[in-house]
């Protein structure tokens, strides 16, 4: 019942947020991923400062990208976060495997994996975006909140999503 009343009060207000990630997917023969045919992306809302560990279950948020045989391609993944996850850092795990089964479930044993950590990627009721090459080598990439674009006036030149005080445009 409380949820119902809350729904009434909040009717008309978006409670979720969306991050549009644009990846440059490496070719199958790229350095560090030779022999892999797929990259399975794992998405976790996790406040930890170290990469999550453990098996990527089939019921966990993920996306499978096929590594192209020719030149690199771009792929967009829209990540929808509920309202209670917007302020938590987002971890994106990149697992490379010869076949998809090796990156998901009980047979989880990726050839190579990297992690991208977004300090903050979401703002309630806002679309944000970020683009990066899919890391190929085993590495960790930390993305500052000010590099996640959103809520900006596209007509106005800007070097980042934050003002001089470091406040993100979506929080102003």
């Amino acid at each position, binding site marked *: 019942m409380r949820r119902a009343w809350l729904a009434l009060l909040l*009717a008309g207000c978006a409670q979720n947020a*969306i991050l549009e990630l644009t990846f440059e997917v490496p070719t199958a023969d790229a350095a560090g991923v030779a022999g892999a045919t797929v990259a399975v992306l794992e998405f976790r809302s996790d406040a930890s400062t170290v990469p999550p560990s453990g098996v990527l279950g089939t019921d966990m948020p993920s996306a499978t990208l096929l590594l192209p045989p020719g030149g690199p391609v771009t792929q967009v*993944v829209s990540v929808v976060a509920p309202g209670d996850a917007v302020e938590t850092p987002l971890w994106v795990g990149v697992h490379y495997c010869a076949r998809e089964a090796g990156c998901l479930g009980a047979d989880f044993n990726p050839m190579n994996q990297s992690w991208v950590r977004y300090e903050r990627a979401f703002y309630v009721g806002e679309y944000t975006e970020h683009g990066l090459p899919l890391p190929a080598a085993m590495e960790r990439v930390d993305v500052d909140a000010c590099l996640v674009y959103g809520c900006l006036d596209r007509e106005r030149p800007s070097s980042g999503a934050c003002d001089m005080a470091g406040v993100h445009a979506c929080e102003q």
Partner: protein
Amino acid sequence: MRTVLALTLSLFPAFAAAQYRVEPPSREPTEADIEQARELFMQGAERVEQGRWADAVSAYEESYRLSGIPAALFNTATTLRSMGRHRDARDLFRQVLEVEDLDPETREMAESRMREEAGRVALILLTGLAEAPDARLELDGQTVEGPRADPVELETDPGEHAVSVLREGYAPWREALTLEDGGRQSLRVELTPLRGAELWESPIFWTVLVLVVVGGGVLGGVLAQDAAQLRPREGLGMVVEL
């Protein structure tokens, strides 16, 4: 007391169940009473000539109350007859006939006119009121009191009339009718329950209404909130939900 009675009788509608009567003096009239009655009788005659029928009736009635002279009562009845108040006229001619020492000529005339007036009294017969003993019956806007038979008989004068039956929880029943001299008309009273009013008064109605309003509001709110959520832009690629 007599004045009050006179006023009551003059205002009493023709359809009332009680007979129209003018009471004679309760004691032997004095010389002064006789003298005043004579003056009133003369006034009555003058007012008849002037066409002031109601004033004439008042004067004749008061004259009779003071003196008990049958001529005053007879003239009252005759004036009522001229006014078209046939039911009252009939009653007073009948009252004239109750006088024991009435002269034969007046008696014969009273009998004749009583029958004539009785033949002009109109009658409305109402059926269907036995099931509604608490209903209020009105004739020409005035409440009809008294015991209810089935059918209810309403004596009245010829002309246009309106009959209404009002009962709590039911739609008012109304009928307009025109009666000829001596006419009779039967009417069936059919009261329709006010379902809307019953519903309105029901706590179940209010409970259901509140539930519908609150439920609708909550559902509307949930739907509105769902509709307001951000959705992935179409054609961009894959979608992952945390």
